[in-house]
């Protein structure tokens, strides 16, 4: 047996809601305005009842609000305004003082059709939910993930050392080699025409190609050699206790196993080659990381300029 509650009780219920609730008629005039709306808009019921919502909040015109509300009147569907697209449909101040990176309240808004006895939609009920906290938590989680990635030493795609880690290690090794009077070689590898792989087969194929490339190079290295991912399709090799002659042997081995390999992704197979520039500290003693990198890079450039798929010495 359904109990009919008195209208005063309904009013109290509506005013107790922890979300904004207001009702508009077909002329967009406010017919109901709950306490939450009063508190957050700074406009009392007396000030808004009977007024055009567009006049009270002029910026609504630009936010697809009336378009969607009209659809609710004509078609009777529910309309949704997500926080992701609209953040603050209504510019109310954010409420939590402690938490806050947002000045305006982040909102999720739903518009519901209200039908007359005949079935026509003659009013709409708009509900505003404050989702600021949820958004803050979501942003925090994203930031944590990012920080975690930065702190880790591994490039998440290819699982070789990331750039920062490689460069730190290179610095350490340079110092150690200088102290011990040993020679170290440094090479930069760049995949030839990598852009074509992405363009022809898509980014997912490109990503897989990078993973396979890194694996293949790693497999051609010796025990103490180190590979790091420097950039998109650029990798660095650190060959400790290795002079130029020995470095060339290693790199030539890498180059040819690459050139001979067939890469596979779904039903597609293709080949790749890489150009390489190598520098040795025996030829350039006392140079720091930056200068050595630059020399290797120049050698790489020459490898590219003279036909690719080759190893050039600095």
């Amino acid at each position: 047996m359904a109990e009919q509650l008195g209208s005063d009780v309904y009013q109290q219920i509506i005013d107790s809601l922890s979300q904004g609730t207001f009702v508009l008629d077909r002329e967009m005039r406010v017919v109901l305005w709950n306490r939450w709306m009063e508190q957050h808009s700074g406009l009392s019921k007396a000030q808004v009842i009977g007024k055009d919502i567009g006049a009270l909040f002029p910026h609504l015109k630009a936010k697809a609000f009336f378009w969607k509300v009209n659809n609710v009147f004509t078609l009777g569907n529910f309309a949704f305004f997500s926080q992701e697209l609209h953040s603050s449909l209504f510019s109310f101040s954010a409420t939590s003082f402690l938490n806050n990176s947002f000045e305006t309240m982040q909102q999720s808004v739903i518009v519901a059709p209200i039908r007359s006895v005949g079935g026509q939609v003659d009013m709409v009920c708009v509900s505003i939910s404050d989702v600021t906290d949820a958004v803050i938590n979501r942003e925090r989680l994203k930031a944590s993930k990012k920080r975690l990635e930065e702190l880790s030493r591994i490039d998440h795609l290819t699982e070789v050392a990331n750039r920062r880690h490689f460069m730190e290690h290179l610095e350490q090794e340079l110092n150690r080699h200088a102290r011990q009077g040993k020679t170290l070689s440094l090479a930069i590898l760049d995949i030839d025409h990598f852009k074509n792989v992405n363009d022809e087969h898509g980014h997912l194929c490109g990503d897989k190609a990078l993973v396979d490339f890194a694996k293949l190079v790693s497999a051609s290295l010796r025990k103490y050699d180190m590979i790091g991912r420097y950039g998109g399709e650029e990798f660095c090799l650190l060959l400790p206790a290795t002079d130029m002659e020995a470095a060339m042997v290693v790199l030539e081995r890498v180059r040819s196993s690459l050139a001979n390999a067939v890469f596979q992704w779904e039903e597609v197979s293709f080949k790749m080659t890489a150009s390489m520039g190598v520098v040795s500290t025996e030829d350039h003693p006392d140079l720091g990381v930056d200068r050595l990198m630059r020399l290797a890079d120049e050698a790489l450039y020459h490898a590219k300029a003279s036909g690719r798929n080759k190893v050039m010495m600095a």
Partner: protein
Amino acid sequence: MNGLTEIRRQAIEELINISFGQAVASLAEVLGGHLQLDVPKVQAVSPLEVINILSASIEEKDEVSLVQQAFSGDFFGEAVLALPGKAGENLMYLVMEDGGFTPDMEIDKLRLEVILEVSNIVIGACMGQFSALLNTVISYSPPNVFLYKITSDRFREHIRAKGPEALLIYTKFAHQEREVTGYLFFFLSDQCLDWLYSEVDNFLDFNT
């Protein structure tokens, strides 16, 4: 309960046909122009067939936007509206021309908003009429939009995750003047099929 018999399949097809007509008329009011309706198919198929259907009609280089909206009530599941290629963009232009509103939003956001709203309307109208024909009312969650390249693994994963297979209903609409084609899929959870089949039987008894 004998599952999807041929007569039930035909009945659901007809119900969706009627419901979709309502949805398309609603959309036409919002967009202007004439929309072409396809004859809907009702199949108990695997999500892979969804991918095949879409792949067959969409160029490889294209992106497809998927709007997904869950509904619940006596029967429940998910509706997915797939808008391939330029459809989203063209919808945006149609809405701006017809709706005559000059939005203050960035183009990217506006495009997403239009895609969401159009999907919301089509799905709501179609499901609304379908449930009314079966004498029930359902409620909807807010729609979510995803953008994929048609060849992407993630796209396939997303569709595949819609299993285990339930009832798949699919149909499409196309706009006469602009390149806007939409594919509407309904995935009905196999947990509600008993209810659905018994209501369909009632409908048949009453109306045929």
